[in-house]
């Protein structure tokens, strides 16, 4: 019953999306101006219906209704409730429904709230949003119906990949989706602006909170995903340049560029066509990433159900949405009037440089991700890894980080390096000191050395924009920028230290034996069996001590066996200190009763993710600042309108008294 209700809601939402698109087009072409009025309410109702459909799917998962095929395939009655619920979006159909739900809700929200744009642009935006949603509704209803029934009803479900049975992962995909889908709003705004050729500061201000919001979620999603891969895969690495990771990195790179160019457009009315193009590209990257992951066209270490049939469907969607948007862009961009000009050395100039570098890195990641595919069409199977991505990415990341230190201090329109040169003396000295320190230590590669030195310089330079300001009056977006840039320095510091100073050890020890890794003394106390709700495990008890006199702490890495479906995973154990992390993985048992242990000492590695969180927090501050000033503006306008109304009333009253 619940499943049918969900399916009905989904069909109605799809029909309303069709209506929204049609009414929008008719109103825009002047054949039904009165229809324009229904577009906003229809968008809102469509969002609510999509939400109902999604809630229905959660309900069938929570109650493990095995007559629903999707539940039978992906869930299991023994699974803890939280993972049953998270299982709703842990599969292809459910995650597509989540995607559509968030997209429709976002569209409905825009329809109700956004009043700054000219009405035709708004209609075109909502029609664009409906067009994209319609494609995804069709995909769900035709090719991947999440509410399909199964007959006969199976006794038990097929479980869920135990690697995915993890809290971090339960909330990692929805976070990324919120990011992807926020970019769909930016995409629709870009389409709307292209249709009506109205690209300007108002458009940028309407788009900016969505870009910011999406970017915050993408940043958090990537940070969480990287941490998940780090502790769950048990390989000790935090980024593998895997297609799935690249699929989340590419929209982030585009969104970061968009975030900066949209600021230029909002405050200086420059970079019009470029911003619109980035708006299209950012969401396109989200869709391309999803396609690459779902179609199974690339091999990945991350488990994901793949199906080439679905791949063709998503590809068709991509061709229509992205191809259509880029064609519209090519036809219209030439007719969008040129924005304000600026000097090469100026805030705009620095932001353009940042945009070009980010786009170059995006191109490198995209090329590296697709190269195995290119090679495959020529008959070769290859894997492109860090030896390509690291140096090629750094080639553009290093100049970008240098400009990142300088840019925020430049003035709009026109400036000179001489003016800001003095405040950069200390950061430059820090960079030099960092390089010298690494050379003295010796044996550190070029990239970690550069990263370490730049992190020091950038850490200092990132707070310089606050110099000379009244801190209490400094607007939130400035604080946000400072925090985000500082977060980049923090993250970079963590990456460089991890890469330069990590110590790894693989040992086979008997219970009672001791070993050491880096500054840690480690003793294997015992290995004992454990049982969880749907797994059994061997758990090692490690007694570890930092240095000779530190406190003894217990660490319990596990080697887990899930039974539905049967699979082995290793649960690593982590011990975090202020200056790094000890990482322990329990391996197999050798014939002579010794146990394999993999141990890493990773100095400052948590800073990688702390930096990511700081970056997202910076975004949040900026978003709060923007929304607050938008609200103030709306209230001020209403106040003025109210006073004008009062004045008119008074006047009328007086006029009424006079005769």
């Amino acid at each position, binding site marked *: 019953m619940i499943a049918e209700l969900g399916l009905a809601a989904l069909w109605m939402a799809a029909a309303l999306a069709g209506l929204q698109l049609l009414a929008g087009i008719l109103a825009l072409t002047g054949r039904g101006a009165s229809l324009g009025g229904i577009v906003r309410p229809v968008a809102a109702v469509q969002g609510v219906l999509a939400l109902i459909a999604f809630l229905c799917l959660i309900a069938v998962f929570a109650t493990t209704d095995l007559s629903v095929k999707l539940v039978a395939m992906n869930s299991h009655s023994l699974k803890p409730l939280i993972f049953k619920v998270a299982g709703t979006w842990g599969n292809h159909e459910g995650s597509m429904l989540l995607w559509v739900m968030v997209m429709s809700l976002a569209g409905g929200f825009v329809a109700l709230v956004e009043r700054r744009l000219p009405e035709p642009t708004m209609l075109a935006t909502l029609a664009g949003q409906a067009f994209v949603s319609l494609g995804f509704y069709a995909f769900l209803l035709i090719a991947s119906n999440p509410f399909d029934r199964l007959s006969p009803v199976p006794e038990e479900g097929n479980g869920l990949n135990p690697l995915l049975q993890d809290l971090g992962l339960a909330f990692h995909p929805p976070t990324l989706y919120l990011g992807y889908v926020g970019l769909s709003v930016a995409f629709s705004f870009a389409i709307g602006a292209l249709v009506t050729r109205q690209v300007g500061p108002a458009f940028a201000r309407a788009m900016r909170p969505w870009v910011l919001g999406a970017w915050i979620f993408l940043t958090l999603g990537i940070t969480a995903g990287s941490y998940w891969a780090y502790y769950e895969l048990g*390989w000790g690495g935090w980024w*593998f340049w*895997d297609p799935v990771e690249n699929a989340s990195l590419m929209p982030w790179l585009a969104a970061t560029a968009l975030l900066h160019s949209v600021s230029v457009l909002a405050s200086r009315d*420059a*970079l*019009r*066509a*470029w911003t619109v*193009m980035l708006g*299209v*590209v950012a969401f*396109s990257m989200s869709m*391309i990433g999803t*396609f690459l992951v779902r*179609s199974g*066209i690339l*091999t*990945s270490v991350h488990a994901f159900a793949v199906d*080439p049939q679905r*791949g*063709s469907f998503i*590809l068709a969607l*991509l*061709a229509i949405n*992205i*191809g259509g948007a*880029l*064609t519209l*862009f*090519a036809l219209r*961009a*030439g007719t969008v009037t*040129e*924005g*304000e*000009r*600026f*000097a*090469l*050395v100026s805030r*705009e*100039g620095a932001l*353009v440089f940042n945009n070009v570098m980010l786009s170059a890195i995006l191109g490198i990641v995209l090329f590296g991700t*697709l190269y*195995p*595919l*290119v*090679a*495959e*069409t020529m*008959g*070769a*199977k*290859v*894997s492109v*890894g*860090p*030896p390509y991505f690291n140096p090629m990415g750094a080639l553009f990341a290093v100049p970008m980080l240098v400009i990142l230190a300088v840019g925020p201090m430049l003035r709009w329109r026109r400036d000179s390096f001489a003016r800001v040169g003095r405040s950069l003396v200390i950061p430059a000295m820090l960079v030099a000191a960092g390089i010298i320190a690494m050379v003295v230590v010796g044996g550190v590669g070029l990239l970690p050395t550069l990263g370490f030195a730049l992190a020091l310089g950038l850490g200092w330079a990132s707070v310089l924009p606050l110099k000379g300001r009244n801190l209490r009056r400094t607007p939130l977006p400035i604080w946000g920028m400072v925090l985000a840039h500082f977060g980049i320095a923090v993250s970079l510091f963590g990456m460089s230290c991890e890469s330069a100073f990590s110590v*790894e050890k*693989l040992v086979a020890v008997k219970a009672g034996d001791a070993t050491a890794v880096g500054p840690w003394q480690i003793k294997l106390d015992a290995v004992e069996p454990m049982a969880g709700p749907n797994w059994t495990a061997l758990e090692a008890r490690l007694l570890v001590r930092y240095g000779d006199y530190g406190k003894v702490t217990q660490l319990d890495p596990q080697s887990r066996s899930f039974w539905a479906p049967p699979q082995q995973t290793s649960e690593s154990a982590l011990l975090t200190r202020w200056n790094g992390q000890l990482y322990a993985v329990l391996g197999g048992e050798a014939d002579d009763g010794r146990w394999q242990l993999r141990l890493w000492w990773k100095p400052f590695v948590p800073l990688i993710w702390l930096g990511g969180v700081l970056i997202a927090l910076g975004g949040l501050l900026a978003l709060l600042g923007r929304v607050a000033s938008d609200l103030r503006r709306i209230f001020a306008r209403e106040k003025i309108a109210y006073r004008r109304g009062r004045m008119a009333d008074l006047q009328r009253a007086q006029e009424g008294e006079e005769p």
Partner: protein
Amino acid sequence: MSPPVRTKAPAWAIWLPLGLFLAFAALVTIGLLRPADRTVASTLIGKPMPAFALPPALPDRPGLGSADIATGKPHLVNIFASWCIPCRVEAPQLRALAGAGVPIVGISVRDSTEALTGFLKENGDPYQRIGADDDGKVQLALGSSGVPETYVIDGRGVIRYQHIGEIRPEHVAMILAKLQEASQ
């Protein structure tokens, strides 16, 4: 004072994104339509392998030169790297082949001693010798464009078979047959 920057894009640049996207769409369409596996005969088959000498990749065993392979017995030459994900997939098959008595030598491409040690500990170590090909020159000379690739080389040093991509379980019998052919 620097002149104002032109912010108007030239016409070709405006069409560039669409062009790139169409290229992408064409590429993935081919990828989706193409049958999953295909064998391509290399032009190097039947030719002697080029002469090379690589330094040891690990301190515990010798490096690899062409003279070490042309010893009268067929060898498998496996081009691999610790950063290559398909290499992890083929590791069990290589172990099985080594267990069947096949002499396997490795060329590790753009790798570090630590990463390589970790990779071998995790995925097993079927290699009698490992040469370090730090700039990928020997890899290119052998006509290999990526990792992993595996060559069957007969006792005289002639390339008899090139396997592109990972060795899957279903390939093991075929590779044993190729080795058998090469020993005759």
